[in-house]
């Protein structure tokens, strides 16, 4: 398959848009979603609001890192090539930064200031992770039963080394069973 001229133009535009977004995407694709929406829907008119919302929902349903919302957008705009170009453009620039940061850290691993910086960043990661869990729990909260599922899973994960898949499967079964049992879900 040889892309036509207009296809090339489209791919170049996708690559440029996402490569730029990649370097500003602190917090990943979810935190950058408003800016992605502005670029894709409002500025470039690649799709309408409803399509954008649907692609975001689809990407949330699939497993894996949230960056695949970019893959879904690329797929919708320009098929398989679009998916490849958009995903690579979103991942490559930030990955080069990460590689640079890691190598710099290793190079200066004996330095006291760097060890202070690493110690100072660790609790920020912990706070952010609690925040994600809290936001996810709020989003999943449809009443007492869902809160109980979240709380139960938190306890199991914190206290045991049980494979979490069991807990997630149990959550899905409880969700399924809630309706015939008369719980709102």
């Amino acid at each position, binding site marked *: 398959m040889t892309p036509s001229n207009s296809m090339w133009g489209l791919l170049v535009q996708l690559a440029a848009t996402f490569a730029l977004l990649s370097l500003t995407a602190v917090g990943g694709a979810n935190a950058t979603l408003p800016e992605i929406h502005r670029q894709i829907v409002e500025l470039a008119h690649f799709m309408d609001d409803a399509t954008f919302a649907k692609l975001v929902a689809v990407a949330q349903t699939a497993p894996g890192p949230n960056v695949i919302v970019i893959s879904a957008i690329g797929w919708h705009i320009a098929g398989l090539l679009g998916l490849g170009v958009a995903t690579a453009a979103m991942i490559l620039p930030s990955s080069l930064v990460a590689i640079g940061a890691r190598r710099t850290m290793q190079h200066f691993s004996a330095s006291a200031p760097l060890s202070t910086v690493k110690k100072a960043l660790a*609790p920020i*990661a912990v706070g952010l992770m609690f925040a994600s869990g809290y936001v996810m729990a709020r989003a999943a909260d449809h009443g007492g039963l869902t809160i109980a*599922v979240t709380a139960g899973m938190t306890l199991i994960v914190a206290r045991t080394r049980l494979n979490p898949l069991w807990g997630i499967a149990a959550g899905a079964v409880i969700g399924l069973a809630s309706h015939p049992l008369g719980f709102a879900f």
Partner: protein
Amino acid sequence: MVSHRDLFSAFFKLGLLGFGGVAGWVRQIVVEERGFLDEREFAEWLGVASILPGANTVNLAVMLGDFYKGPSGVLAALLGLLLAPILILITIVSLFDQFASQPDVSRALGGAAAATAGLVIGNAYKIMRAIRGDFRAMIVAGSTFAAVAIWQFPLAASLAVLVPLSILGFAAFGRRS
């Protein structure tokens, strides 16, 4: 020694299992299952991965791949992380309209999402145990949580304030623990 295959398979599993986001599974697989990093190292690496641009899981995969095997390790980790999710994504995009409107499917996904939230909180608790004895760390973690989750300040702005403050705090009260 960690091989390309180890990197690929660890992140392939992470990609495949991470329904509702990979945040809860990363620590589970990288620390508990594979032992690539210990608790404290994981917290520090995740901290760096979180303030750099890009998804923190993608950044962590890149950093671990580069640490063990250089650029080809990065490729192995990233391919592992993205392969299954992208194939599943393409399948769901094609089926979405019939699929998501099924009430049973949405109820099951709702229950799984509630459990996944618990997985994230439980893993955050386990990382916190590694820094628990340090009052500076607890203050920073609590402020970060409050800023992002309770007050819902924009993430970039929160980090722009919290990161320098945390570094200053750790530098000023150094060598206490």
